[in-house]
């Protein structure tokens, strides 16, 4: 039982990072119908931004975290301004956008690799990061708590913005149908930028979370997580925001439980196999409806 609880905590912490990442991913898809494969690299840039601010400028973790979100959000916003926006305006096929996002992803990796090198780096240990609460034989690390709480707060803020504010209403209208949004006077171009910013900021947050939790910031960290995020997003139903959050959590737990109760070499096989199974039984994902519900 103790081992089960311990593994559950491990899985929830991992799943929380997947969830934050997947929510940003799915938001972009749900609102703008864009699958941005550079999302993993934007996460990586966020992690590096957070790392540099704590290492070089000695910022505490919280401001670094927020600044990293802003920087990653800014990169995503720029990608809309410079790449996806112009492509869409010229009426490019949506597959062009997909390929462009892949190219952008490699570009970001190459730049970070050139500037910071390829070695894995870690966040500096702070006095509170090593703290552990012991409940019987179960250990909860302060970092795990921080990562889980940060994920919950981010989700709550996002849910509030989407459900309770005028901006959220506008975003949801745009997700429903851009032409309708235009008709009722929603500034679509600006909202597109805002949506990109939000998704980038969520990726940046997930980057710093992963970075502090596992002490492994590297230019290639986005590639693994991209696949995980994509899976969580599909698991939850394309464009379904709460679904992506739950999908991330389920994926994290599935990974950990498959190590715990099957074999560690089956980790990815079980996790991705489970997704396959879900899709075969429910092609629209766990929470998606036949007519796609968006944002």
């Amino acid at each position: 039982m103790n081992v089960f609880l311990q593994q559950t905590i491990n899985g929830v912490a991992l799943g929380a990072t997947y969830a934050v990442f997947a929510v940003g991913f799915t938001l972009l898809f749900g609102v703008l119908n864009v699958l941005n494969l550079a999302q993993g690299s934007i996460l990586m840039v966020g992690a590096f931004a957070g790392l540099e601010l704590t290492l070089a400028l000695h910022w505490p973790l919280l401001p670094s975290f927020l600044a990293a979100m802003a920087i990653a959000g800014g990169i995503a916003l720029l990608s809309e301004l410079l790449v996806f926006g112009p492509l869409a305006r010229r009426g490019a096929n949506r597959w062009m956008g997909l390929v462009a996002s892949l190219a952008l992803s490699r570009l970001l990796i190459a730049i970070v690799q050139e500037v910071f090198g390829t070695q894995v780096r870690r966040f500096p240990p702070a006095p509170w990061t090593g703290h552990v609460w012991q409940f019987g034989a179960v250990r909860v690390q302060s970092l795990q708590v921080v990562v889980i709480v940060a994920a919950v707060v981010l989700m709550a803020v996002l849910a509030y913005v989407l459900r309770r504010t005028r901006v959220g209403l506008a975003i949801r209208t745009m997700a429903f149908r851009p032409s309708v949004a235009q008709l009722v006077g929603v500034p679509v171009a600006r909202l597109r930028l805002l949506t990109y910013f939000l998704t980038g900021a969520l990726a940046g947050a997930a980057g710093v979370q992963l970075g502090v939790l596992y002490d492994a910031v590297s230019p290639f960290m986005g590639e693994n997580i991209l696949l995980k995020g994509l899976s969580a997003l599909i698991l939850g139903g394309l464009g379904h925001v709460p679904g992506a959050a739950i999908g991330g959590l389920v994926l994290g737990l599935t990974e950990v439980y498959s190590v715990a109760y099957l074999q560690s070499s089956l980790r990815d096989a079980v996790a991705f196999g489970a997704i396959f199974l879900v899709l075969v039984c429910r092609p629209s994902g766990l929470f998606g409806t036949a007519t796609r519900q968006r944002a």
Partner: protein
Amino acid sequence: MLPIKKHLLALGVLGLAISTVLTIPAAAAAEVVKIGLVQTTTGGSAALYGIEQKNAIQLVVDEANASGKLGDLKLELIHYDDGADRNQTVNIFQRLIAQDKVSAILGPTLATSAYAADPLAQKAGIPVVASSNTAAGLTTRLGDYIFRVSPPEDNVTPNVLKTVIGRYGVKRAAQIYGIDDQLTKSAYGVQKKALEDNGIPIVATETFQRGDVDFAAQLTKIKAQNPDLIVIGALAEEAAGIVRQARQLGISQKVVFVGTQSAISTKFFELGGAGAEGVIVGTAWFAELDNPVSKAFIANYASRYKHPPDIYSAYGHDAASLLVEAIRRARSGDSKRIRAELVGIRNYPGVLGPIGFDANRDPTVQPKILVGRNGRFVPFEAK
């Protein structure tokens, strides 16, 4: 960043032009022996090892050229970075053999790459001297032109585990290793056999994949089995993550960790933090080794590269030294003759101590046992 690079490039071209003009009379007399240098300088853990080896090899070759001990032979190193991608290593070997027409090759960095690319050199009759391939049985599997100075895991690990088991009275062991890397898989096999030979039950065997950062699930599972020894088959970055997360998960300080030679890197302590303390590894070299060749090497290396050498620099040094010695004895760049001379070298004074090759073209050096203390590896006292 970019403009500076451009300037450097321009300067380099200019310098090259000048030096070509200046050295034509001298070069006319000298026969140039080309040596391929295949070391990973970008791409994760492997670059940690590759850069050090490349530095040391460059040092040895420059010294050999300057010393005049090679007579009218002049050595030229041709370096390519394979980015830890074995397909790239194969391309590089093809290029070195067919286009650059090298006499010998130093490298590659990873055993996985060696398995992919070395057969090309073997087929072409080009001797290869590796300085960081430690997978068991590598040279015998690949052929009689393949040499290495890095002692294979099966030469080092059994003794390390035997010593640790005796010293700490180990009763139960667990293993964790990377399943998608030749070296770590090979290390796992050797470790498993050594544990079994000592009659130690293996209570848990866990795996991970290259690039994994979360080991909590595996370690929680291992912890539940209460081992008193955890044997790690991983490269430096993953090994650091494993020991750090193990301590965070509350695996007791009394549990001993044994790693592979790959853990010997300053990065291991930087990433592993307090978790890296007390980790035990076997190796052929450490900085405090009482050996004049080693001491001179440390001084020269540090003055040129502004940081102290590590185990991989030491391996690189001896690989290059043995190759240079073979070329000196062969008095030519003929690959066949160089290979014949390599086979015959015995007790050459290397950084690792007296070194040569055995019948399997593995190095003849005495392995040592080290333990992590205060951010570096020091000799382990087996009481």
